[in-house]
């Protein structure tokens, strides 16, 4: 492990460094890094398939912790603070890091960028591995769908039945209404109330998405997509659009 001291990263704007940030930087160095700072070795063959209770090596961890601390002292940082009025202050500290990389720290307000989902990436609720059912995606509506309300098929999942209807206006999905959702036991009610409104939002907002795809799982449920897709299929069929 080497610590090349890279110098000459200049200060972009001078502003006092937030004491909280300094505290955080100190913590960054004090925490266990838990990782070798040496490059990965091409390890030996696979481990035997059962191997309970592996633990880290404490001595190594302590040594690495010290290394990380020294790395932090030569850290290059850009810091951007955004306050609630949207004003930003930017600070860049100087010099290099252990890995020669600059770390940028920024406050991260949830910017209202368009969401998820050209392709809604689903997480099947804690069930087992998904069945073989193919779900063509709830793609943005192709132009030319005749305005109207299209009812999707109902789909049963372990919590009950989900059925939606889709309202098209001006060739676009204007609304998605839940006709049926599981409400048997308390758990189902909670799931329905939290999950379904989010799904509706996702479908509506995805039509203006300016991204091709999204990394990081987004909330969908299979039953919802199946019902949604059949409503879209119905809309397309009624409008003479194939596929």
């Amino acid at each position: 492990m080497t610590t090349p001291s890279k110098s000459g990263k200049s200060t972009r704007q001078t502003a006092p460094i937030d004491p909280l940030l300094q505290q955080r930087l100190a913590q960054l160095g004090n925490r266990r890094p838990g990782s070798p700072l040496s490059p990965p070795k091409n390890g030996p063959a696979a481990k035997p398939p059962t191997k309970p209770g592996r633990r880290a090596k404490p001595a190594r961890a302590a040594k690495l912790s010290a290394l990380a601390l020294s790395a932090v002292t030569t850290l290059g940082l850009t810091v951007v603070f955004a306050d609630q009025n949207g004003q930003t202050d930017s600070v860049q500290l100087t010099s290099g890091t252990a890995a020669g990389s600059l770390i940028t720290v920024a406050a991260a307000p949830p910017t209202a960028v368009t969401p998820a989902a050209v392709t809604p990436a689903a997480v099947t609720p804690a069930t087992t591995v998904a069945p073989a059912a193919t779900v063509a995606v709830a793609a943005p509506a192709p132009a030319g769908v005749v305005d109207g309300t299209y009812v999707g098929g109902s789909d049963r999942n372990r919590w009950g039945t989900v059925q939606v209807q889709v309202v098209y206006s001006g060739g676009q999905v204007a609304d998605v209404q839940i006709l049926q959702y599981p409400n048997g036991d308390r758990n189902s009610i909670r799931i329905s109330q939290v999950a379904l409104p989010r799904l509706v939002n996702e479908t509506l907002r995805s039509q203006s998405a300016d991204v091709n795809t999204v990394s990081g799982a987004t909330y969908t449920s299979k039953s919802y997509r199946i019902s949604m897709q059949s409503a879209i299929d119905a809309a397309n069929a009624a409008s003479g659009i194939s596929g």
Partner: protein
Amino acid sequence: MSLHHVEAVMGTSISIDIVDSHDRSLVEELVAWFHEVDEVFSPYKDDSVISRLGRGDLAHTDVQVSDDVREVLQRCGELNEATDGVFDVWSLPSPNGTCFDPCGYVKGWSVQRAARLLEQRGVIDFCINAGGDVALGGLSGDHAPWRVGIRHPDDSMAVAFVLEGAGPLAVATSASYERGAHIVDPRTGQPITELASATVVGPDLADADAYATVLYVMGADGLYWLAQQPGYSGCVFTRDGQLITSEEFNFYRAA
């Protein structure tokens, strides 16, 4: 005309986009592959090779263990070494009741294999997204770089920022926002509490996916480790709402 398909398989949904193609057999080939992976690697299936390995009914040297399984075991072992135990598929609570669960590697690995299969078929421009882990080839449909939104950790409806790039490119995110604290530190068995999410960009999704898990477990410090993996860079969201990125990662960020 482009192909678009979503398949519910492997406990997630996998979307496949192939730009400028009518050849549905490409999609069918990928779908068949993912179902094969599910059969062999699912820890939810008692008779899968992985479950049998986990219970000790099969030894990894057994003839019934395919080259694919061996490759996964081999790479998981290498990653375990390279991360000093941070990446450890042998110490995780598995749905099949054992402590062997390689899912954290298999998802990215299987998508990367699917991407390679498309390349072998002469496909240049494609996007495969498996539950938020993305493998990209070439350019998007409008001949522009792919734009990959990174989900905001606090709002499943919002994209925190956008990455832009041409394939081959992989983007993987590890987080616990969907299923509670489902990522634990294999060294302590404790759930991860420092970070909300960790994202890794690099050339290969098998490694990017594993590195995202490693970064998530290591915390912000892991960015130093990641910077030593050639071609890979990343960012983390802390639970208190800060975004910390490696310098190389910013290269991919869209203005």
